[in-house]
């Protein structure tokens, strides 16, 4: 079977598709960066100009103040819109997001980098864990849907899906950190350990990550189980499943036909939620005092740290755009119908 049939996964075609996505993604990012530039500049009270003027009031010369402000925001506080815009884009190209106001002198990229460490792993772990759990339970809930077990599983999904994440988080801290204090109530790690690759530090990291990860898992589990259940039920009604049974296919094969067809649409959602992960989880980070991206965003807003805000937004945008591209390409690889480009 070496025929060149249209519809085989050809590397060239996928690469071409990836290229197209990349261009579109870059355009997206450029648009968002432009919007955030305009917002920061045009926001009531003009923080850029305000900074510039307050520096002058503190006794700086206008030139000094101009330079200091330019360092903060990535563009000159004076001058016309176009010059400022070109300056801002120029520093973006050098991955320079400016400097933080609330933590003076520290580069925004550094702050984001630190926060990302505390976000990416727990949220990633929570996303993947809830995905695996929800999908597995969703299959059971669908297959046993006319029995007690199925009802219970579906109910657990609906309940957890309906309870807001901060309620779950507060319950978790109330139970496992206050009533029955086996878990730390907050913070990412105990301070007594020396950061590095040693058992005490890593153990403490994991210990602190348990509650946030469990909270995140419970909060998103409901969505997965409900989505998977309805997908499996839909595929169960498809003729090819009955046809496979009538051809005497072994249960394992039938199950794989079922699972693969049902899980396919969920991969897009999974890829997107991994992209959203760069937004952090504001409630969870707040409750467990986890210095992640969500908390960073909240802090930057409450302290009117516009450079940091813009940078955080940009990182979230990039995460989502990249996740979209990955989801689309993933689909091209795993779904032959998408691969050959729109057949009946």
């Amino acid at each position, binding site marked *: *079977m070496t*025929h060149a049939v249209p519809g085989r996964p050809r590397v060239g075609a996928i690469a071409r598709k990836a290229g197209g996505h990349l261009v579109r993604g870059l355009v997206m990012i450029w648009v968002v960066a432009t919007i955030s530039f305009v917002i920061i500049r045009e926001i009531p009270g003009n923080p850029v100009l305000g900074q510039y003027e307050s520096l002058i009031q503190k006794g700086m010369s206008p030139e000094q103040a101009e330079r200091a402000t330019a360092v903060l925001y990535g563009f000159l506080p004076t001058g016309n819109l176009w010059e400022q815009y070109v300056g801002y884009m120029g520093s973006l190209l050098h991955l320079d997001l400016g400097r933080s106001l609330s933590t003076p002198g520290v580069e925004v990229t550094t702050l984001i980098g630190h926060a990302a460490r505390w976000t990416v792993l727990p949220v990633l772990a929570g996303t993947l864990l809830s995905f695996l759990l929800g999908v597995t339970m969703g299959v059971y809930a669908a297959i046993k849907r006319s029995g007690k077990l199925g009802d219970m599983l579906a109910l657990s999904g609906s309940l957890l899906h309906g309870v807001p994440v901060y309620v779950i988080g507060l319950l978790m801290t109330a139970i496992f950190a206050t009533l029955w204090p086996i878990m730390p109530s907050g913070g990412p790690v105990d301070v007594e350990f020396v950061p590095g690759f040693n058992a005490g530090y890593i153990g403490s990291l994991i210990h602190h990550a348990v509650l946030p990860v469990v909270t995140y898992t419970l909060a998103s589990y409901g969505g997965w189980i409900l989505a998977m259940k309805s997908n499996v039920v839909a595929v169960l009604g498809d003729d090819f499943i*009955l046809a496979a049974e*009538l051809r*005497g296919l072994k249960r394992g094969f039938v199950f794989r036909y079922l699972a693969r*067809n049902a899980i396919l649409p969920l991969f897009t959602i999974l890829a997107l939620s991994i992209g959203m992960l760069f937004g952090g989880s504001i409630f969870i980070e707040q409750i467990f005092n986890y210095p992640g991206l969500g908390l960073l965003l909240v802090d930057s807003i409450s302290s009117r740290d516009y450079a940091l805000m813009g940078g955080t937004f940009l990182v979230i945008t990039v995460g989502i755009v990249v996740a979209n591209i990955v989801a689309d390409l993933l689909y091209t690889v*795993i779904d032959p119908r998408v691969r*050959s480009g729109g057949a009946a």
Partner: protein
Amino acid sequence: MTAHTAAHDTAAPETPAAAPGVRIRDLTVVYKTPAGELPAVRGVDLTLAPGTITGVVGESGSGKSTLALSLLNAVQPPGRIAAGSVEIDGLGDVLTLRGEDLRRARGRQVGYVFQAAQNSLNPLKTIGKQLLDLGRSHDVDDLRALVRDAKDLLARMGMDGARVLDSYQHELSGGMRQRVGIMLALVLNAKVVVLDEPTTALDMITQATILRIIREVHEERALTTLVITHDVGAVAEVADSLAVMYGGRVVEHGPVTEVLGDARHPYTQGLIRAIPRLTGDLSLARALPGRPPTLGTLPGRGCVFRERCERRMEVCETDEPMAVNRDGRTVACHAADRHLSLVKRKEFV
């Protein structure tokens, strides 16, 4: 897999064994509804003579697809086979088979072909991979030979086997998918083949091709074939004998030319009158008045067809007509019964 249940694989590979006969006896299938369990198929007796093609016609809801699924003991919930037996030569009563025995019989001894428009193929796998899954499920040792057989069958049906095996479902047309379905039903050498509406939703030319293929493959492989359809024309083309179903019963059964040429049951007569002719006046085609019964509106006693019957008698209200076999034809109708006996008497006078 160690199981050598596929002993006949090696024992008698190419001797065209005599086609098996199929005897359906007193088959009753009920569906669970809010109004209790209602029969979709009731007390059906039907014998498929070895090596013949039997057509089953009937309107939607007449129970013909349920009958077809019963041959594989595959009635889907909320349906349930309540009584009866389906004896297949060399296999025994299919309705007593359970678990692995049943699974092995499906595909290996009884092939099932789905309606073309509905998709009977996994959209995410190539036909070839699904063929291999089928082979592995039935412990076929020589998968290369299986692929060769599949290619032969596909070529036999006018397709490029290698190309088809390398394709996904969405890359094939409806007619091609249907032929793939036939290939998958036959590739394990099943001798009993059930085709459920094999030409529905196909265009006329493709329909004709599929029917010709069914007829040819049936003869070449010495099969016993059951074709379910609502298209009397299609059945006339392909079948040896014809069973007409109405309201879950077989109301008439006999050689296809006789049933169509000289229908005895008023329902069959109405069905034939309703077919528009290619020549002549369209208005000559007369629709059968009334609507077919649904599970809920089936009368509890008497003849199921009496509401729409122009030859209704008093006895039809109370007694269900028994299927009477006369000169190789079975009819379940009080009126046809009396009519016949009158004719007979006249002949003797």
